[in-house]
């Protein structure tokens, strides 16, 4: 096989992520009604109804009873639902006292907090009423601009393009840890290099990028031994804030938090001593462009569309990108990119050759060389095509299929050219004295199916390594027989 490592960028869903968390952590997450609701919404459809059925039933439900809830046709959905509930420790298996039958019981904290959400009560956790109106209220366009700027700065850093805008050490660490960049040192100067995984990351749509990054962020936080609970909650509440009406203009600026409420909310949790963990997280998010805070000390902040993308990502719907598409790809392998963004040029340059540049558009060419360079860097043909499709200009979207088949096929073919050589270990037999000897051994090897290559004129042949011993034995026996 060829030497290139094939790294697959893995992007888990929220459900999968939560499953990896230990039970104790989940339990403490469930302390908060908002989290319960997010987790509840993430459940498979059938599981939701199962939870609702037992919500007000305090006794555990026997397994037999649970099984009888679904029809036989829906057996697989049923198993999936029960598995999901158990994985998330929403349901716990218990053994009924005095009986052999096991049963499921709804997690106590989960039950309590879900009931609280439904019936009301508890204290509200996001109120800015006491802060009064914001003098510096931002509108959505401004927020969008801010978010795009920040997020692109991060991607710029990743691409290593010229404008090396400052990125905090924390985020750099995060990038390294998530395997998106590699850090090396040369002549006493640190330099960063994008990895194959990083290339793949660049080609994702922004919603997936953010979600991937947030997941990596969580892992990073966990590795540093910080308490995940308040941060996870913070993320949930953030994403939650916009679940209602994502596109609603006015829903955005309404969501503002004061630090005082946050402090209060953290006091609820004595296990975690310091509330500046969340504040630090807020600063990180601010840097990524997920939230906007006017000043570091400002008492309120606004979530941006990027965080909303997390929310819609959790709802498994395709997220609306920050900007509309800008690429037109023609069947002559030319690509016209209508954008001013340095970043987009840099990304396109990963797999195209730049031909011309104008103030608002640049013309690029997909060539065999450029595509193969991209493949060497670890980008697959499908990722290139996905990127073009995801960023296609509205006019190009009218085509069906969006990318012309000739173009798509050619890109795949170019990528496949890299795989033309297959490596196989073998043993070369040469210097046969007689043509007859060569033919006998070759025929034997061919019968075995072990012959890899032969050249009758030069009396050379290659046999697979596995069959080498057997062929050698045969040869010795043959020599002996013919010699005598």
């Amino acid at each position, binding site marked *: 096989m060829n030497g290139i490592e094939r790294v697959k960028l893995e992007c888990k869903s929220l459900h999968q992520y939560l499953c990896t968390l230990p039970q104790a952590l989940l339990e403490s997450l469930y302390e908060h009604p908002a989290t319960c609701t997010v987790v509840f*919404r993430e459940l498979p459809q059938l599981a939701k109804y199962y939870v609702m059925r037992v919500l007000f039933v305090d006794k555990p439900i026997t397994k037999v009873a649970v099984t009888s809830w679904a029809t036989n046709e*829906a057996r697989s959905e049923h198993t999936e639902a029960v598995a999901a509930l158990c994985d998330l420790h929403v349901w716990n298996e218990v053994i009924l006292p005095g009986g052999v039958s096991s049963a499921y019981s709804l997690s106590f904290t989960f039950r309590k907090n879900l009931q609280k959400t*439904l019936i009301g009560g508890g204290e509200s956790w996001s109120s800015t009423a006491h802060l009064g109106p914001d003098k510096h209220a931002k509108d959505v366009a401004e927020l969008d601009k801010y978010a795009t700027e920040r997020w692109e700065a991060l991607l710029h850093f990743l691409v290593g393009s010229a404008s090396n805008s400052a990125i905090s050490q924390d985020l750099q660490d995060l990038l390294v840890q998530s395997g998106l960049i590699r850090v090396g040192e040369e002549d006493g100067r640190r330099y960063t290099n994008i990895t194959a995984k990083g290339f793949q990351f660049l080609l994702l749509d922004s919603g997936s990028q953010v979600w991937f990054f947030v997941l990596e962020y969580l892992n990073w936080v966990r590795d540093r031994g910080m308490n995940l609970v308040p941060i996870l909650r913070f993320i949930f509440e953030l994403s939650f804030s916009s*679940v*209602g009406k994502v596109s609603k203009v006015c*829903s955005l600026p309404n969501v503002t938090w004061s630090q005082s409420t946050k402090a209060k909310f953290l006091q609820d949790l004595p296990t975690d001593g310091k509330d500046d963990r969340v504040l630090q997280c807020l600063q990180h998010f601010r840097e990524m462009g997920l939230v906007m805070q006017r000043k570091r000390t400002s008492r309120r902040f606004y979530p941006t569309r990027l965080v909303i993308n997390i929310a819609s990502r959790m709802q498994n719907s395709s997220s609306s990108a920050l900007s509309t598409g800008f690429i037109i790809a023609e069947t002559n392998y030319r690509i016209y990119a209508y954008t001013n963004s340095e970043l987009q040029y840099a990304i396109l340059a990963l797999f195209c050759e730049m031909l011309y540049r104008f103030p608002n558009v640049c013309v690029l060419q997909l060539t065999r060389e450029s595509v193969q360079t991209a493949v060497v860097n670890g980008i697959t043909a499908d990722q290139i095509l996905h990127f073009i499709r995801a960023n296609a200009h509205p006019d190009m979207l009218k085509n069906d299929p969006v990318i012309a088949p000739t173009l798509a096929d050619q890109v795949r073919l170019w990528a496949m050219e890299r795989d033309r050589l297959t490596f196989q270990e073998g043993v070369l037999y040469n210097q046969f004295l007689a043509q007859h000897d060569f033919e006998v051994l070759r025929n034997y090897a061919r019968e075995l199916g072990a012959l890899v290559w032969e050249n009758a004129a030069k009396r050379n042949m290659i046999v697979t390594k596995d069959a080498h011993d057997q062929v050698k034995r045969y040869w010795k026996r043959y020599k002996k027989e013919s010699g005598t």
Partner: protein
Amino acid sequence: MDPGEQQVLVVIFDVSPVWWGLKSLQGQAHITKFFDSLIIFMNSYLMLHSDNKLAVIASHSTKSIFLYPPPQAGNEQNSSEYGDCRDKHFAVVDNAIISSFKTLMSDGCEEKDMRSDSLIAGSMANALCYIHRITQELESRERASSRILVVKAADDAASQYMSFMNVIFAAQKEHVVVDSCVLGQDSGLLQQACDMTGGLYLKVPSQYAFLQYLLTAFLTEPELRKDSLVLSRTKSLHSVDYRAACFCHRCLVEVGFVCSVCLSIFCQFSPICSTCETVFRPSSLVLKSRKKRKVPSRSSSPCTDASIK
């Protein structure tokens, strides 16, 4: 997760003052208890999916009133108010429902309101119009599965038979499922409605079980109910009564007489239809002879027409 199908649910709550008054005097049931359960149910429904749409109609004995969405404000501005978090959304919905319910309750009822039968048909007609509008507004984007849940207390109103039937047929045509939860006596009309639209009909035995019934049976969407969830094994036990009530004595008949003009049903033969005042011919013998006499007169008419022309 579930596909991009939006759910629309209209809850119709029968608040007939006579029935509830009587029950509360007997100490058997209190309307506020049921109302609380209903609110929890509605919150659960909203929690299932953020796109779920809800409307609540209170069916008084002479009027039906939208408790939610509140009619005075445009819905658009309203949604922004609770757009910030789910907890608040619930609160907004709950407050709206409770406040309009309070006004309705404190309005008091006049002499004409004192009727023992319910006004479900009117509320259902309103619900259908509302669903019609919601689905039309969505149509370009996705299909909506819509449902009406009727929580009925008082008895059927016999005078509403025709309107009720029209409502059922309209629901059937619009693919709206009618579920009903009956607190008082069994309702033949609702049984038919549920049977014809593929909904669920349940009678709640005690007020304590009300919430559990709602959460177990009525929270699930009809499609899921059909395919995967077993709800009750007793569902098919009662057969739906499709017998007709005659127009003259309001008694159920197995064999009756039907007026060929207006399709009124009578339990015995009468020479004149009381509904459309058609005179019937008593026997086929007379009928035949008359017809014979009629034939020449008819055939002559074209001739006269022709001569006029």
